[in-house]
């Protein structure tokens, strides 16, 4: 079983099947199909040889008259992303069990999964772009159909904002395609192009803006807090847990190897944007009353640090970024799930209306605390390894590394402050009158929280397996740039 295409085919077929399921048994079908997807992913993880080569590569003629082929494959950078996507989707589907959803909802999730997987495994610019857009359409519908508040306007802004970014990327892709002689779109030939200085400059910006909008990096983040806050919790988990990694992954796959000299010129600016995002996101998160908004801004801070790690152009920085993408995905899904539980139980996610829930919900409080420790980056949790590597990478960045590492390092302090405030305002203190009757988590909720807690601790104690996957690929990437 080394046919990578099946990982694209299954979600598409699931999406079609689920579209026809009208009753609430859809959630079980969706869950089972997503577990099958994990089962199909495992052989690739097990038989992956952790060196720098591209493995399980497949290529078909697609649009012969334009010389475009459909090429997919895995390397040490895309495999962790594939694990993240296929691993989180079942959790996210399971987390939606509390909301009675029908087939259409799960059909959109499966369709989005196909787009995400395509983004991560594609090795030609054309299918990358198609996956990039194919992931956007379902999430737009998920957020706008099942969201709350001013969802229509907010999601339209989200769509047009990101679509504009992708159009810039499309222009850059077309340019690169023509530079290869107009007959080739494969990553192999595009990343081997030697571009002029001027071309590198604008291709850098076109790609970078597209990715920075998706991540989102300060100051292109303005769609993110509203979209996260007004989306249904499943949508928020998909967006923050997986989708924003598309942007970070794009930096690694399509930006660094393609325009190495422009990275030398502008990488510093990108790094600063990331660091500014860390401080900005943290400070605003500290002031937030709405729990979802709090996590949305903390997410800006976290991804800012990841992007800064990537642009430090060091082995530790990039490997830390890849690890931290996974960690962030796990903890942010956990946090949004906790918020979803609180909202369903207490009818609100306003921090000032909550409090003292630890006495009523001991299991939730315990797991919540561990997830928060992971998000802050305490030792023995996954966040510690990730942030440590990121900061070490930024520290040894070519210029002003120490300064950036010190500013970026404040994320640990800020993160502890706003996360513990979040915990304290919900779990500790006096219980509010209207929450006296709440019950603790049970059944599938315990299962999800348990899995997340296990992952947080497991990766924190034994990160080597994951780090080992990406090591060779990252060092080859760095050689390619220099």
């Amino acid at each position: 079983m080394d046919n990578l295409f099946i990982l694209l085919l299954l979600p598409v077929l699931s999406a079609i099947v689920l579209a026809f399921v009208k009753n609430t048994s859809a959630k079980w079908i969706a869950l089972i199909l997503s577990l099958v997807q994990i089962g199909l992913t495992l052989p690739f993880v097990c038989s992956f040889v952790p060196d720098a080569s591209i493995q399980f590569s497949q290529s078909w003629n697609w649009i012969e008259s334009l010389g475009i082929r459909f090429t997919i494959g895995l390397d040490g950078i895309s495999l962790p992303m594939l694990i993240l996507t296929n691993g989180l989707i079942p959790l996210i589907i399971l987390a939606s069990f509390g909301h009675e959803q029908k087939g259409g909802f799960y059909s959109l999730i499966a369709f989005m999964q196909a787009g995400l997987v395509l983004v991560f495994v594609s090795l030609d610019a054309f299918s990358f772009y198609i996956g990039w857009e194919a992931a956007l359409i379902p999430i737009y519908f998920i957020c706008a159909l099942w969201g709350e508040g001013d969802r229509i306007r907010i999601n339209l802004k989200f769509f047009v904002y990101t679509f504009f970014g992708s159009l810039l990327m499309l222009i850059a892709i077309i340019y690169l395609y023509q530079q290869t002689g107009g007959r080739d779109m494969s990553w192999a030939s595009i990343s081997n192009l030697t571009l002029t200085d001027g071309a590198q400059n604008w291709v850098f910006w076109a790609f970078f803006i597209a990715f920075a909008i998706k991540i989102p990096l300060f100051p292109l983040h303005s769609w993110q807090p509203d979209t996260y806050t007004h989306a249904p919790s499943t949508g928020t988990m998909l967006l923050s847990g997986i989708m924003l990694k598309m942007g970070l992954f794009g930096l690694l796959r399509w930006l660094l190897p393609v325009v190495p000299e422009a990275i030398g010129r502008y990488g510093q600016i990108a790094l600063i944007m990331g660091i500014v995002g860390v401080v900005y996101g943290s400070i605003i998160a500290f002031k937030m009353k709405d729990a979802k908004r709090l996590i949305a801004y903390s997410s800006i801070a976290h991804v800012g640090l990841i992007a800064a790690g990537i642009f430090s152009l060091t082995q530790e920085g990039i490997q830390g970024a890849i690890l931290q993408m996974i960690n962030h995905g796990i903890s942010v899904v956990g946090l949004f799930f906790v918020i979803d539980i609180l909202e369903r139980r207490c009818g609100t996610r306003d921090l000032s209306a909550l409090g003292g829930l630890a006495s009523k919900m001991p299991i939730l409080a315990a797991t919540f605390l561990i997830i928060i420790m992971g998000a802050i980056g305490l030792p023995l949790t996954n966040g510690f390894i990730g942030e440590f590597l990121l900061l070490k990478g930024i520290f040894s960045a070519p210029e002003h590394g120490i300064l950036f590492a010190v500013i970026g390092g404040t994320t640990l302090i800020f993160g502890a402050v706003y996360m513990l405030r979040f915990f304290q305002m919900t779990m500790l203190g006096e219980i509010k009158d209207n929450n006296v009757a709440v019950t603790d988590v049970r059944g599938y909720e315990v299962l999800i929280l348990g899995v997340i807690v296990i992952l947080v601790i497991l990766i924190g104690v034994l990160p080597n397996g994951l780090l080992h996957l990406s090591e060779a690929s990252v060092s080859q990437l760095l050689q390619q740039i220099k």
Partner: protein
Amino acid sequence: MGAIITLSLLGIFILYLGLYKAKNALLPVSILGLLLALGFQGYYWTVEAVPLYKGMVLFDHFALSFSILCIALTVLILLLSKEYFKAISDHVAEYYTLILFSLTGAILVCSYHNFAMLFIGLEIMSVALYILAGIRRNDKASNEASLKYFLMGAFSTGLLLFGITLLYGSTGSFDLAAIKQYIIDNPSNISPMFYGGILLLLVGLCFKVGVAPFHFWTPDVYDGSPILITTFMSTVVKIASFAGFLKLFSTVLVPLNEFWTPVLLTVVIITLFIGNVSALMQTSFKRMLAYSSISHAGYMLFAILSIGPNSASGILTYSTAYGLASIIAFAALILVKRQIGSDQFESFNGLGKRNPWLALVVTVAMLSLAGIPLTAGFIGKFMMFSNVMNDYHTVLLVLAAINAAVGVYYYLRVVVHMYFMNSKEEQSIQISGNFQVVFVIAAILTIILGVYPDLILAL
């Protein structure tokens, strides 16, 4: 040539059928005739193309592919027409006849090899449309549309004819090959009259395809005409005019591109902005489509702006995508308007609940018009963008990207109304068999071409 003769005879035959009150035979006979014409075009595909009738027409692959597209789109439109025309008036046969005559003209415009044929083709195509636009005699808007279309059309034909005369004056021939030879023979001393002729031709053709700043007739005419006639105008007629436009510039005037490129570049930029910004402000779905068709014309001009080996296949792909999506959009509008009685965006409210499949098909059409991947519209846009990239018009591309993002906004508005807004109307729309066939064919083709575009690009 077989197609032109078939269609002309078919038109007359249909008139007689109408005379003898054979109403039920009209649609099947027309469709059969069109399929026969398609068969002729398919047959000529394999035959070596030579200019026919002393170089009057030339059925090369370019002409054949565009005329096949026009005939196929007409088949789809006629399939929609059965109930629609009956609801408007009793003289149904005249509709079919006029549409068929107009199509004959469109095929001539695709296949001309002599300026006389271009002129005759444009006139046959337009005169039938002047009548069709005003065919609802008691409707003021329809009359207005007809009069505006006629005045503007006559005016632009006049300019075009003047341009042709000037070219004739400097070269002594109407034949495309002869004019091309003239340019090649006199690279340095082409007479100023010739340049004047090019400009007038450009203006005349820009009028016909409705690009800014010669677009003022489009919104009113598209809005006032019966929906199905608007569909025909904005798809078949527009595509044929573009084929004629492209043929003139790609085969004859390429060597002089330094002269006309700046003019066309200005036209393209103005068109993109006027089309998109005006479409953004519309509250009526029909008018939105009218303005968006202006901006699509702007994108299609990209291919003429940077003529290369891929121009023809680019325009063909783009027109196919645009034609299919427009037919879906207008057909849905017919259904919705029949139920709600208005062509505002609001009438689409709640369609996602009432008619989920119809809403899905309209969504596919809107995504295709917006150029989202996995639809034919994306491939069209991709081809256009890569054409322009050949000539390094990067600034133009960035402007185009801004406009495409604006376009997404108003196309998504329809989707927003269909899925996210509720209406009082509970009844789902009854969709007749013919409409279902058209929806299914157009939607499936849109997706197939989006996933496997080689079907059309390899032509």
